[in-house]
């Protein structure tokens, strides 16, 4: 019996080792290639002949086509603004849906559900023309404003997660505040928000990660204005036919640089996510 258990345990550990090897291998390959000395795209061998930091250095001293630090700042600015805006929207809507009772509440929630079933970028063309009509596609800076609006405009529809969280905050706390003479607004600002740190962090971080990974909207709105690109379109451009030979290794260096902050943020959210799902104040 004991011997059998040792055998199964070993087998399981070996299996896990093989699997995690498969899962880590591509990531390892990305890191490996980012340090490769030889330029050019595909090689007939895997292990690099030499190692260098030049790919990283060149990223930040690029020419007109590849301006990595500028792209990075663009994305950062867009991300910060759209995060603030969409977190505000999400928190307002989810608080209203969770705590306040009014006539159109159910209708609103059903509409939100239905709207979520349309493919997101089906409306992209229309959004593009609306932005154009508003005059937001004239210059690069305005396009960045447009991108912020696109990322945060419909954010109010994604309230389900935060609403679930607010639902778990006991109503008795609110009622106690009303008795003490607080208005509903006071209760929202002074009681619900401070109690909701996990879900606020979660909302902020997910909203923040959006612009770093979105490709389609950014591409449609930015068009050919290379200096105003976000990271995602920038990296995609590096893989295009005419650039790939030259920028292949730099592409991987860029990927590594982007992945590190996003990965850290993700691992942080993980904790907030679990707390967010499991609810706020117990009892």
């Amino acid at each position: 019996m004991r011997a059998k258990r040792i055998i199964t345990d070993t087998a399981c550990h070996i299996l896990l080792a093989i699997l995690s090897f498969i899962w880590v291998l591509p990531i390892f390959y990305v890191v490996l290639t980012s340090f490769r000395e030889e330029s050019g795209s595909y090689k007939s061998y895997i292990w690099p002949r030499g190692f260098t930091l030049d790919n990283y250095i060149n990223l930040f001293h690029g020419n007109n086509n590849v301006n990595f630090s500028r792209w990075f700042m663009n994305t950062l600015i867009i991300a910060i603004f759209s995060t603030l805006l969409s977190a505000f929207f999400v928190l307002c809507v989810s608080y209203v849906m969770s705590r306040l009772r009014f006539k159109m509440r159910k209708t609103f929630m059903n509409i939100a559900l239905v709207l979520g079933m349309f493919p997101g970028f089906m409306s992209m063309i229309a959004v593009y023309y609306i932005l154009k009509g508003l005059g937001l596609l004239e210059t690069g800076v305005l396009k960045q404003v447009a991108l912020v609006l696109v990322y945060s405009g419909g954010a109010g529809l994604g309230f389900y997660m935060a609403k679930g969280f607010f639902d778990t905050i006991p109503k008795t706390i609110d009622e106690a505040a009303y008795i003490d003479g607080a208005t509903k607004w006071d209760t929202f600002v002074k009681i619900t928000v401070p109690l909701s740190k996990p879900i606020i962090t979660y909302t902020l971080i997910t909203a923040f990660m959006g612009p770093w990974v979105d490709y389609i909207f950014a591409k449609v709105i930015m068009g050919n204005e290379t200096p105003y690109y976000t990271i995602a379109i920038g990296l995609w451009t590096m893989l295009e036919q005419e650039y790939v030979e030259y920028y292949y290794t730099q592409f991987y260096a860029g990927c590594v640089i982007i992945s590190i902050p996003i990965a850290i943020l993700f691992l942080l959210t993980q904790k907030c996510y679990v707390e967010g799902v499991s609810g706020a104040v117990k009892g």
Partner: protein
Amino acid sequence: MGIFNKKIQPVYTKPGDAGVSQAFKNGNVMTKLSFFIFGLGNITNRQIVRGLIFLAIEIGYFIYLVSFGIGALGDFITLGTVEQGQVYNEALGIYEYSAGDDSMLCLLYGVITLVLTAAAVFVGCMSGKSAYCTQFRKEKGMSIPSFKDDIRSLTEENLHAFLLAFPIFGILCFTIVPLIFMILIAFTSYDHEHQPPGNLFTWVGLENFKSMFSQGSKLAATFWPVLSWTLIWAVVATVTCYILGLLLALLINRKGTRAKGFWRFMFVLSVAVPQFVTLLSMRTIFNANGPVNVLFREFGMIGATESIPFFTNPLYAKITIICINIWIGVPFTMLSTTGILQNIPGELYEAAKIDGASAPTIFRKITLPYMLFVMTPNLITSFTGNINNFNVIFLLSGGGPDSLDYYYAGKTDLLVTWLYRLTITQKDYNLGAVIGILVFIILATVSLLTYRRTGSYKDEGAFQ
């Protein structure tokens, strides 16, 4: 007992309490007029500011309507009549374009005017209700709220209106108006041959839907294969990721496994890297000259110049994409199932072991039903997510390999990526819109049907 039988007189203290028809039926002349002259009832009852705001909205709307709106509605019906013309300018010796109507803008302004009209009607109803409420309070001898009270009510009983105003405005501008617009485009002839401002397009009714389903047309010959691949993909991707992720979570969670945190971290790492990075690097890794093919060549499994057509052969491409999707999806499932697995009551397992059940039986009879029960809503979400899984297909294969039998689609194109191609590359906006509507119908049916059949919907306490 009498107290229970007494009919309770409704008390109308704020505009939302009375229905529109009720307000219109019971209201006096002033109230009735308030439906047409916004704010009248409020102004005559010394609620000057509230009344004036209503009135200002109405005046603003009519100014808009007269200066622009009526023309926009007319254009909306015709979608433009004057085609852009070319006039030969003899003095300069060049062709000059004479400005014509832009059907695209006609449609857009029409939609905006309709939305504004709906908003004006809504404000009109509010005005009438507000007038009725004031009238009611006056008759009952109650105090009439001043403008200050109105402002204060925004932090109290009308807080929802205050908090929802901005988000709803955003949703209206960036989700609802564009969506109405695109749905309408499905009924026009806005394709690559009718591109404004050069050409006009018009209403064609259900023509686009007909050509999408008509026998023998190239569109139908594309639509059905793409649809079936979309459904196959969604089912296979959801099921493989779910089952394999569950098994992985079980493997890590079993009693004998050491260093659980370490194993979890190894898999979570791939989730933490941004998805487009993993997808783009996967694309290069499986490229004809990418490392995987190099590896096969070095081991002598294929010739030195040969390569396995991971993305160029339709069947290989499908298998490759599903495998890569497993690589991406399994850690996600592992993460989300770990917590739930730990919640399965331990007695169930003990009882099964005493009865002599083997590990596969326990998995099939206890773990899987329990997990399915808890996670069906989750599964439906991931299924619909997979139907709309644009990123994986677009960044990996771009829908390719392209097929000549198809109307601008590749063998691995999903409906959404086809939609993308039709609109962005091909500029057949009407067909794109038709596909968008069809995807919506599919998703709505699937979610409604499955969700109503699930255990967690019908019998909430089965596992409690």
